[in-house]
């Protein structure tokens, strides 16, 4: 299969932090139709990388080629035609006053006539199962529903590539599962190439290939099975361990004796307030 994204020797430095570069000589390719996961700690540069591919950051070193078009300030709008991006915070990417207005936003930007927009908005909402919410305001939607509306906005403009920039990280477990299932289905129906930036183990497991970014460098490239076989090391790679385990680790680091074994959130809560009232 052909490479739909080709990144060569990409480096980027934020102006206000003149120290180490946010991206340091990164090269990779993505095949058409592939699902690629980018994992890494907060601040490792994975979001920066996604933004650079979409032309949202003016990088100076290296080349990015998307669908055969080399990314330059002249071709940036052409490249963006091929990429749909969903961000972390469902609220901060909802532009329209109602669901249908928001789905239409991308079409309006492309100066598509209203006669063509109306059926495309409707079809896109049908696709994500939000047609009954067309007139709703964002305040009346859950986080997961807002992300589905964001997906509908992308379905409406029919790009080749979908980038999920921690798009499920602010959702509850159910919303996260629904969103992933929806992305899977859309990917098959629309033959999308998916790049997902994530801390979520399930999301990373859906991928065909995982790239691990650390400190602006590409440190590992492997199949999900190879990565997950490394057990303990997942934490070092920047994938999420359950919250209670992280809390226990943090307490242990401060010299507090914590109960052994695994606790649910409720058990942990019990134990916490009991030990607090004893002191």
């Amino acid at each position: 299969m052909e490479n739909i994204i080709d990144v060569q020797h990409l480096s980027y430095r934020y102006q206000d932090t003149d120290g180490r570069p946010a991206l340091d000589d990164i090269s990779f390719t993505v095949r058409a139709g592939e699902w690629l996961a980018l994992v890494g700690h907060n601040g490792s540069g994975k979001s920066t990388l996604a933004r650079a591919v979409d032309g949202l950051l003016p990088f100076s070193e290296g080349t990015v080629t998307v669908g055969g078009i080399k990314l330059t300030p002249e071709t940036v709008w052409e490249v963006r035609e091929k990429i749909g991006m969903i961000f972390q915070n469902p609220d901060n990417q909802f532009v329209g006053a109602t669901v249908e207005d928001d789905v239409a936003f991308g079409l309006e930007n492309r100066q598509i006539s209203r006669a063509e927009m109306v059926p495309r908005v409707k079809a896109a909402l049908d696709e994500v199962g939000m047609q009954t919410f067309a007139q709703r305001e964002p305040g009346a939607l859950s986080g997961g529903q807002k992300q589905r509306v964001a997906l509908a906005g992308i379905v409406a403009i029919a790009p080749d590539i979908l980038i999920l920039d921690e798009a499920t990280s602010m959702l509850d477990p159910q919303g996260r599962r629904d969103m992933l299932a929806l992305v899977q289905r859309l990917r098959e129906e629309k033959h999308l190439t998916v790049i997902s930036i994530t801390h979520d183990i399930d999301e990373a497991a859906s991928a065909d290939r995982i790239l691990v970014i650390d400190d602006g460098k590409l440190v590992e490239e492997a199949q999900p099975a190879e990565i997950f076989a490394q057990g303990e090391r997942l934490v070092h790679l920047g994938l999420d361990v359950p919250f209670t385990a992280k809390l226990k680790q943090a307490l242990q680091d401060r010299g507090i004796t914590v109960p052994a074994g695994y606790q649910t959130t409720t058990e942990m809560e019990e134990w916490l307030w009991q030990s607090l009232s004893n002191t």
Partner: protein
Amino acid sequence: MSNFIFGRYLPLNSIVHRLDPRSKLLLSFCYLIVVFLANSWLSYAILIGFTLAAILSSKISLGFFLKGLRPMLWLIAFTVVVQLLFSPAGGHVYFHWTILNITQAGLVNSGVIFIRFLLIIMMSTLLTLSTQPLDIATGLSSLMKPLRWVRIPVDTLAMMLAIALRFVPTLMDEATKIMNAQRARGVDFGEGGLIKQAKSFIPLMVPLFMSAFNRAEDLSTAMEARGYRDSEHRSQYRILTWQRRDTMTWIVFLMVVATMLATRRW
């Protein structure tokens, strides 16, 4: 904070609600001028009749309009009293003390002022109760279109207004959350003197502004990623259509105005 309803829009399904917002905005504006043209009791009676008819056809209960009057009550009372006491001499003098007079002309004048206030507030309350803020914004930007020729970026302003309206509830929620978080840390909102109260809002405003700036940053990135370049080169999904009921409303309004002008003292 949560009982504050922006624009106090009441979603009902009446002819007034279904009117084109442009038609309602223009009519409210013309009405403002018309109210000041009336000067005889009969001409006021006609306008009161028209206003009541408009309110009745909106299916909104009168109670909401009276609530809309409440914040204006002191202003109305003050104006009426000033008008009553400092009016020019004319007709029978009921009361006289140094520079204060209550005369027949003063009584009439303050009555007129009171009715004008009432009519204008009723009509503008009807506009906001029956029209969604977003529709008002769309209507305004559509009415301002001609200003493009004098190089005013009408579309950009309309986009800004629409986004501002879109984020009002989001920031309200945020403010409530921050207030609760600060309350949990022992901040008292609405306690103590005026200065203490004002001070207690500082721990609310700082995080609220921080978060608003972060949201703005995220939003602009998301808009750019979705192909937004500028507001002038975009098509419109939300369109306004002038319908028969708008034309009918205007015919009725112009007939009322004509009758009012005929009964006016020239």
